[in-house]
């Protein structure tokens, strides 16, 4: 310890370390240690029962030679189509909700409700809505439009659009709240100045609202991409064993199956690290690119 410190300072420092210690130790023990261990395990063949065996890069090599990993990666990226659609819809919704009328908080609550509902409950609900013969959706399609709806969760071509639909419904509320906060922080002076210059509603929206919300766009995009990479629960419920012809399996589902169905912990750790590195690179790229389009004041 530094000799210059007075007794009082020293004591205060000791207190500081004490209060900081539990979360730091907690992280080291339950956060960092498993992460480091999983790097080590990713070079091993380990079934949790017998001693791990060193296989070098064998796991990584096997992953890159397994067709299923590419299918699940493709599925995961496919699901990201939902991100821009969701951003557009939640922005529109936020603009609608950004007015003062009677019952506005009730409406906001309604749209936020899916966010606080457990994902398992939502998935079970949609399982019924999307049922081919008895589901609400296909019944409406038939009654109102006379269209025979597809087998949403049973047809390999429709599983992913169904999952996107569910994701949109569930995620709209959370993004709406973010946009709402963004909208309310846009100063009205911009709009007044634009009006004096003769700008119409569309111009105000496209030249003022959208650019000034760019930090929010950015945040939603980054979180959306990371979230999409981590999609798991709804797959686990809706797509038994990855869905027809593995059409619903995401990369995390793939990892889960190898970890907790086949107990190839080394293989699963290796796949998780590949995913982690990929998310890191993509997020880094997004941050670099963001300098070109995100407006920071």
């Amino acid at each position, binding site marked *: 310890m530094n000799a210059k410190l007075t007794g009082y300072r020293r004591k205060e420092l000791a*207190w500081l370390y*004490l209060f900081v210690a539990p979360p730091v130790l907690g992280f080291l023990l339950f956060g960092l240690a498993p992460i480091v261990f999983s790097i080590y395990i990713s070079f091993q063949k380990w079934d*949790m*029962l017998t001693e791990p065996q060193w296989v070098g890069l064998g796991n990584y090599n096997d992953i890159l030679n397994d067709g299923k990993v590419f299918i699940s990666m493709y599925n995961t990226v496919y699901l990201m189509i939902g991100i821009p659609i969701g951003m557009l819809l939640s922005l529109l919704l936020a603009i609608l909700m950004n007015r003062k009328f009677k019952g506005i908080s009730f409406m906001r609550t309604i749209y936020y409700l899916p966010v606080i509902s457990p994902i398992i409950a939502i998935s079970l609900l949609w399982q019924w809505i999307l049922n081919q013969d008895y589901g609400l959706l296909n019944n409406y399609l038939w009654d109102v439009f006379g269209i025979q709806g597809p*087998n949403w969760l*049973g047809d390999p071509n429709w599983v992913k659009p169904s999952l996107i639909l569910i994701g949109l419904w569930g995620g709209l509320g959370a993004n709406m709240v973010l946009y709402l906060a963004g909208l309310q922080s846009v100063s009205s002076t911009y709009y007044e100045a634009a009006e004096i210059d003769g700008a119409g509603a569309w111009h105000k929206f496209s030249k003022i609202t959208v650019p000034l919300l760019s930090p929010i766009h950015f945040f939603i995009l980054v979180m959306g991409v990371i979230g999409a990479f981590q999609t798991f629960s709804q797959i686990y419920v809706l797509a038994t064993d990855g869905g027809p*012809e593995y059409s619903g399996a995401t990369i995390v589902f793939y990892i889960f199956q190898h970890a*907790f169905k086949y107990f190839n912990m080394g293989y699963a750790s290796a796949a998780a690290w590949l995913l982690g590195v990929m998310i890191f690179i993509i997020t880094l790229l997004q941050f670099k690119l963001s300098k070109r389009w995100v407006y920071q004041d």
Partner: protein
Amino acid sequence: MKRNQPWVGTVVLSGMLVLSACSGNNGPAEAPNAPTTPSNQENTATEGNKEPVTIEFMGHGNPNEKKIFEALIAAFEEEYPNVTVKYTSVPPGEYSQKLTTLVSSGKAPDVFYVGGSEFYRFAEAGTVLNIQSFLDQTDLFHPDNVWETALNRYRYDGSNVGAGDLYGLPKDVGPWAFVYNKTLFEEAGVAPPPAEAGAWTWDDLLEAAQQLTIDENGDGKPDQYGVGAYSLESAVWGNGGQFIDYDTGTVMVDQPEFYEAMQYVADLSLVHGVSPNQEAEQALNAYTRFLNGKLAMFAMGPWDQPAFWELPFEWDIAAWPASPNTGETATWLGSMGLAISAKSDHPQEAFDLAAFLSLDEDGQRENYQLGQAVPNLIDMARGEFLEQDKAPASRQVFLDIIEDYGRPDVPALSKDTQWIDTFWQDASKVWNGNMSAKDFTAEIQPKMQELYDKGNK
């Protein structure tokens, strides 16, 4: 000194927090012992010198099974007063994860369910105890009176399952039987499938199914189907084919005996329309259709009996139709085992419990009377079980499967099941008619072989 005291207190407190966080998992496991100890001591006083012992038992199953096991355990505790059993029932979907995690962290329950490929992995890893010496000493076990095929699944000789010393006891045997809705057959005036093997072939099945597939409202989609969820295993084995030759480790799905059988099963819906196609199955599975009385022929295990007893129509089981090419009948025979942790502190008591659950006469009687299983004890199965006054009338079929034409389910003898899981995942290409069984099996065989070699050799 006095001024420092709060500081000391905080150190102790935060230290305790960290410690309790580390040891959090040990605490609860020990705690349940405490309240039961007094009653044990009481028993010890009357019983003699036996130490009170607590053993943990973990299983899975539906609420019915849980209730039965609670009753069986109570009976066990009465007979062995010094032993207290802590029973945990886990939802079947989470069981394997939970068990493997407990085993790998050194906290395996003393007695637990283990079946199929898991047993193989556990036996190889030395997780389950060799119980041969215990078996030789108990008077509950008469090897001639327990189904040999069930016992063999829990033998391990140091490299393979199926021979050698016993490492577990069967909790049950699960013959996968062919079941039909008797009322529908009678109404349609169709002769029902016979109970003796080989008397009915695939052609008879198809003919009956055609008569029993009915489009009631004329929308072009049948509302009642002839047959559902027809067992591919039964078709393949009956036709002389195999999924795999376990002796050589060769995946055999690309052989004609296999793909002909697979095509037959696929054609039941694709060509003949007597079985729900994949879309119809997705919308409403065969099990629900059968319960609703809209499916004439289906498959069941003994554990389905309680639900089927509630049905408003009559039903019975029959032999699986034989392949016309061979005249042979086959189906799979499942089993779940009871094993003892090699690290158990009380192997004798743990063994006593496993033996009681597997072999005790009263327990086995209760089990079959409640429609959970066929008795493990051969004399009971051939005697009072056959006379039980409940459906199915042709109970003998269950025993025929066990003794004669049932085979271990395909994954039971593999450590790693990815090779067969891949097959089932991709088989929808055949079920939905996008590929012929011949092309599909030719395409997938190398992939399955690679996965099998990687995980099992």
